[in-house]
Every structure is written in C-alpha cells, then in structure tokens.
C-alpha cells in the first residue's frame, strides 16, 4: 500500500517501511542498541533524502529506547546516577557535534565524512567485538570456565580524582571518564546521525567496567535522552522530521523490539556479542566497498533551495 510522506515529498510502500522498522527493531531489542546505524542507510536506499532519514530515525530510536528503558527500569537494571553523569557529557558532545556537522555541510564534505566515520568506527568496533566473541567461544568450547573479572586490574581509570558512588552498579568511580565517554558518544552521534549505543555499551563494559546487569538499561536511558533532544533539534533547525515516516517506523520498531528482546534472552552472551560484531562489521565493510569501488553514477544532485 502506497502512502505519501508529507515532508520527504514522495510516496513509499507503507508495509515495506513497517517491515524495515520491525527488522531493525528486532535487532535493536536483541542487542540493546538503537539501530540507527542500520535504519538510516536503509531509508536512504529506499530513496528518502539523508536529511529526512537521519531526522526521522532519531524519533524512531527515541520510541524504541523508551520501551527498552521502561522494562529495564522495572527490573531495576538502570543506574540513574550513571545515566545522569553520562548525559551531562552527552549534551556538550551533541552541541559540539552539531557545530561540526554544520561546518562540514557548508564545505560540501559531509557525506564523505559520514561514510569514512562509518567505515572507521564500525569496522573497528565490529572487528574487536568479533575477535573477542570468537575468543570467548573457543574458551568455552575447551571446557574452561569464563575468565573471571579481575578486580585488581582497574588501571589508571580508577586512580582518577572526583570519585562518586554509583549505587545501582556497585561502583566507586571517578566522574571524569564517565563524562568524557558521554561527550564522545554525543559528538559522534550528532555527526553520524546515530544513537551510538553500539559504541557506548562496549565502552561501559571494557573501560568503566560497569556490570552487565546495568549496562544495557543505562545505555538505553542515555539513548532515549539524546535522541529526544536530537528529534527536537532536527525539527526546529532543519524542519526535516517526517511525522508519517516517523510514526510508521516507531510502530514497526517497538513491535520488532519486543520479539528481538525475547530472542536475545535465549542466546548466550558471547554468541550475542559475536553476532552483533558480525553485523556491525558487515555494515562497515559495505560502506568501505562503496568508497573504494568506482560508483556507477559519478554525479549526484541535491536541491539547495526553492523559489524565494
């Protein structure tokens, strides 16, 4: 069934968009990530302009991360203090990112920057997760117990000042690395048009050593806050949020996320990380191939303004 999108200015097949929302929602529910890094390229592929895609996807991520956050909240798997400290860095990072976004767009190199960042980030993170996942699987197959968390190997991160107690996560940690991580996620998210949970979760686990029980819930709370802000900012500055597109994506996304979350609970942690690593790496490789191979069409058109 064709439906006309009032802001994107083109008709799309409603069921196709709904199915895409569900598929990405399934993945996001399964892995606890927003799925922006999948949804935005998919929408652009269907013919929706990148500006509308990025802006509308942020509201879709806000919706599915609220669903996730609520269920983690009921299970007391969110650390509110940690989320707040992360958010304080995230706000500054988002503002800086939007600044760079505007600068790059005026230079005409935004698309390239986004593509290169996708390749660099997704390949690195995906590769590392895949490597770690394979290692953990082989470890388990040999019948060895999983590596215990070494409490002594905290390193320099835990020697920093301004320590704060995060009760829910049972941590006593300096706020400096937490704010810095929030800042990085906010910055990267604003420039690349993604929620950044797939970056945040590994950072929380490996750098901050947040227990797995509160990691995903807290990450989703941060995503909810940043994506709500992003939706509002896109609506006010670019006028590119398409209400109809956003609604279809949200409905598909929240439905898919439920099934994804159930599927995720049946899969073991290290297999889940292996799968997510594979997914992230393949998106990164796809962008790399696109940059390296001569495109069939060397020219692109972009409308820059209508009748004054």
């Amino acid at each position, binding site marked *: 069934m*064709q*439906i*006309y999108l*009032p*802001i994107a*200015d*083109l*008709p799309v097949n409603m069921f196709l968009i709904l199915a895409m929302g569900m598929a990405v929602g399934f993945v996001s529910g399964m892995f606890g990530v927003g799925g922006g890094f999948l949804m935005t390229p998919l929408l652009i592929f269907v013919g929706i302009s990148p500006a509308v895609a990025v802006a509308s996807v942020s*509201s*879709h991520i*806000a*919706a*599915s*991360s*609220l*669903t996730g956050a*609520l*269920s983690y909240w*009921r299970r007391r798997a969110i650390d509110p203090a940690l989320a707040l400290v992360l958010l304080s860095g995230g706000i500054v990072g988002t503002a800086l990112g939007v600044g760079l976004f505007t600068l790059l767009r005026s230079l*005409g*190199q935004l*698309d*390239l920057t986004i593509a*290169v960042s996708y390749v660099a980030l997704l390949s690195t993170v995906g590769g590392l997760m895949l490597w770690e996942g394979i290692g953990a699987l082989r470890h388990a197959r040999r019948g060895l117990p999983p590596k215990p968390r070494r409490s002594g190997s905290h390193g320099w991160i835990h020697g920093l000042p301004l320590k704060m107690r995060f009760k829910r996560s049972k941590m006593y940690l300096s706020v400096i690395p937490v704010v810095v991580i929030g800042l990085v996620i906010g910055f990267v998210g604003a420039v690349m048009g993604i929620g950044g949970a797939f970056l945040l979760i590994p950072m929380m686990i490996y750098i901050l050593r947040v227990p797995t029980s509160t990691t995903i819930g807290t990450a989703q709370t941060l995503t909810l806050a940043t994506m*709500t802000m992003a*939706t*509002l*900012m*896109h*609506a*006010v500055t670019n*006028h590119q*949020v398409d*209400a*109809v597109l*956003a*609604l279809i994506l*949200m*409905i598909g996304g*929240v*439905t898919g*996320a*439920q099934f994804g979350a159930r599927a995720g609970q049946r899969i073991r942690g290290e297999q889940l990380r292996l799968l997510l690593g594979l997914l992230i790496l393949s998106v990164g490789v796809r962008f790399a191939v696109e*940059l*390296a*191979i*001569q*495109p069939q*069409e*060397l*020219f*692109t*058109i*972009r*409308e*820059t*303004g*209508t*009748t004054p």
Partner: protein
Amino acid sequence: MIRHLATAAIVLAALSAAPACAERLIVSVSNHRVTITPNYAGEELVLFGSVERDDTAAPPPPYDLVVTISGPPADFVTRRKEREFGIWANADSRQFLQVPSYLAIFANRAFDAITTPDLQRSLKLGLDHIVLTQRVGTDYADVVADDPFRRAFIRLRSEHGLYRQNTAAVTFLTPTLFRTTIPLPAEVPTGDYDVKIKLLSRGAFVTATSTSFEVVKVGFEQFVATSAHQRALLYGLTIVAMALTTGWLASVVFRRD
C-alpha cells in the same frame, strides 16, 4: 497576469501581422489543480486544444506543435565524484540556479523535422535548448548542451521522471485538433506549473499560448508540511510526544511480568 498580457500581445501581433490567415490556439488542461492526498502515486493530466483559423475556406496547412511544461524553479547542486587517495569522494560541483524542478517537452514529431536548428534554439525547443543557468565562479550563464554537468543533471532528473522529452507525445486528432498527456511522477514537486504551447507550420513560428496548473498538498499532508515549517517547536514536541507514547504503549501492551 503579465504572462496573460504577453500571450494576448502575441495573439494580437499574430492577428495584425497576417490577418488573412490568422491562427489562434485554444487549449485546456483536464485538471488545473492536482491535489496530493495520502494515496497519491503519480497522475496524468490531459492537455487538449485546437487551432482556430479565421480563414475557414482554405484547407489548413500542416501544423506542428511543441508543448513545454515547467514546474516551480529551484536551485540544485550537481557534484561529481573523483578518485582521491583510493576513495571516491565529491570533488567538483556546479550550481544550477532557478531551473525548473519539473520539465517536460512534447512535440508531434522530431524537432529537426519541425524547423531549422536556429529556430529550435531561439524558441527553446528540446532539452538541449532549454536555458539551465549555472553559476560558474561569479558568472551566471548556461553552458553548451554537451557539458558533462548539464548532461548529468538532465539524466538524473530524467531517471526520476522529472525531466522528459518526447517527440511523439502530441497527437493531431484532426488537422487542427490536438491532444497530449502530461505525466506527473510520484515525486512531483509542489507549486505552480507553466504550460507553453508553440504552434509552427512549414518550419515557421505561427503563434503561441500558455496555460497553467498547480500541484498542491491538501488536508493532512498540507497540515503536516506547514506545521513542520511554521510551528517547528510545537511540531517537534508533538513528534517527541508521539515517540514517547508509542514507546510507552508498547511496553504496556507487551508487558509480561
């Protein structure tokens, strides 16, 4: 208004110049207001008309007709990718200023058969002769028809059905009665469309007229589009509220504990 005056002037000029065999064009479009509704997926308009002749005694001469439909003007940037350091990146770009966002040129036979190349150029018959203003440095000018950026621009617009040229689209039902269809693609730009009809005979320009139609969003589509631009903050807050409601509803509906 100016357009109508110009048309009237042309008609008057044609009448006064050769009163013995003066021709007038009477045209009409099947729909002067194309509305975009939720299930809009492209539409086709019909343009029909006839050549009115004062001298009805003599048999009509063979007529040729060229119809040019141009949509609301807009600015575009065309970028060309080049290989740099092993990756394909946007390198060169050209700006097209106030060019038609939709352009269709229809005729009853090939332009070369209708008239001379000189007259084709001055009457702007065909995509090769349409003015597409580019900004070249500080200059504003159109370039030659085989400029790679110009050709890429026309090719990419044509792929979306937004630029088209067909020299077999106008049919003469009788020697003086003609019709053609105006296909509007799904991605049609909204705004005012200008339709220019040029009548030629034996290679010479006879007369011209014009008509217009508009493509508008109505109802819900128009409401969404205008609120997004005019009440941006409220619109944004509504979207956020919608997202939060959807998310909350899902967590209630699918709650298992």
